[in-house]
């Protein structure tokens, strides 16, 4: 019994040894920097955009929710159905249309829980372009699912590139049905207002979404996430 106690204590200590942001920063540099930009700036040319292998992380602490990140790193699932840059992952179907070539998509490595915690802590310290975010920019409102979908699809046309539920919507952009649990609201408000201030060459158009609709978009993302969690 004593041996078991020692063993449990040793495991806990090992976990504690890699739980801090400092350790996470080392993991980021060692394992993540080859695919993710940790320092900025974002791609300024198409060539740089094409070379990007994973999302820029130099503002991860403003963009992602820590609770989501820590869980996701342990069991990563694809967020962009067509990969980071869709032309690299499409092939022609029988009728000459484009479809995703799954064989070209690479799975994101999973991290053990202590490393996921440490990396999340380190990511939360990366706050490049903080001047673009206004704390408290988003204030929660209420919105029906149908109103949100009307805005997202019929009025703004965003469904063209984003899935609002698994298997429904466009594929070149990231899914939005997990955005509510994945993304910080004040960052979303800033990004929706001007995506190119964050990512000058990103293939998302600026729809000039006003403040009221920005709030509705984020409310809608929350609704989708809540539905997905049920």
């Amino acid at each position: 019994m004593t041996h078991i106690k020692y063993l449990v204590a040793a495991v806990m200590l090992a976990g504690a040894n890699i739980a801090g942001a400092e350790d996470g920063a080392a993991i980021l540099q060692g394992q993540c920097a080859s695919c993710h930009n940790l320092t900025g700036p974002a791609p300024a040319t198409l060539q740089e955009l094409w070379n990007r292998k994973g999302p820029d992380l130099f503002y991860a602490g403003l963009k992602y929710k820590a609770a989501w990140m820590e869980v996701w790193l342990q069991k990563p699932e694809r967020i962009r159905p067509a990969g980071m840059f869709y032309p690299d992952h499409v092939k022609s179907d029988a009728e000459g249309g484009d479809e995703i070539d799954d064989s070209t998509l690479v799975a994101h490595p999973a991290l053990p829980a202590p490393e996921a915690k440490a990396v999340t802590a380190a990511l939360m310290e990366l706050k490049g372009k903080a001047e673009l975010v206004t704390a408290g920019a988003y204030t929660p409102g209420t919105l029906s699912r149908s109103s949100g979908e009307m805005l997202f699809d019929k009025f703004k046309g965003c469904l063209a590139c984003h899935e609002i539920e698994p298997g429904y919507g466009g594929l070149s952009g990231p899914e939005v049905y997990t955005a509510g649990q994945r993304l910080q609201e004040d960052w979303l408000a800033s990004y929706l207002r001007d995506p190119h201030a964050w990512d000058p060459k990103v293939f998302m158009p600026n729809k000039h979404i006003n403040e009221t609709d920005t709030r509705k978009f984020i409310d809608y993302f929350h609704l989708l996430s809540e539905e997905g969690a049920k």
Partner: protein
Amino acid sequence: MKVLKVIVAELCVASLLLAWSMAASAAEKAADNYHTYCAQCHGVKGNGKGVNVRDMSVQPRNHTDSKEMSARSDDDIYKVIKEGGVAINKSVLMPPWGDVFSDEEIHGLVTYLRELCQCSYGK
């Protein structure tokens, strides 16, 4: 002489800065812009069958269709790229790209689309 050297040095710095700023905002090639931004809906072949079309309520324009494309003037094509489908009473699914492309790049895309359809307005 000393004043002249300073002026020459300042001109050199100004030239370098100008060259740098021009390079930073250099226009991308039309084909590269098309395959980065337009192909997600209009397809890598320009046939209107991009990876996003599955659930679209309005299908994207087939840019290789000379009959359809010859019905649009260059001005209309320029306008729809810059301001989006709504600007010419077409679908909201065609977004405005005026914040992404310079006017020069949009003109380049109009020329590129004419190459894809092998057509011109009315012909």
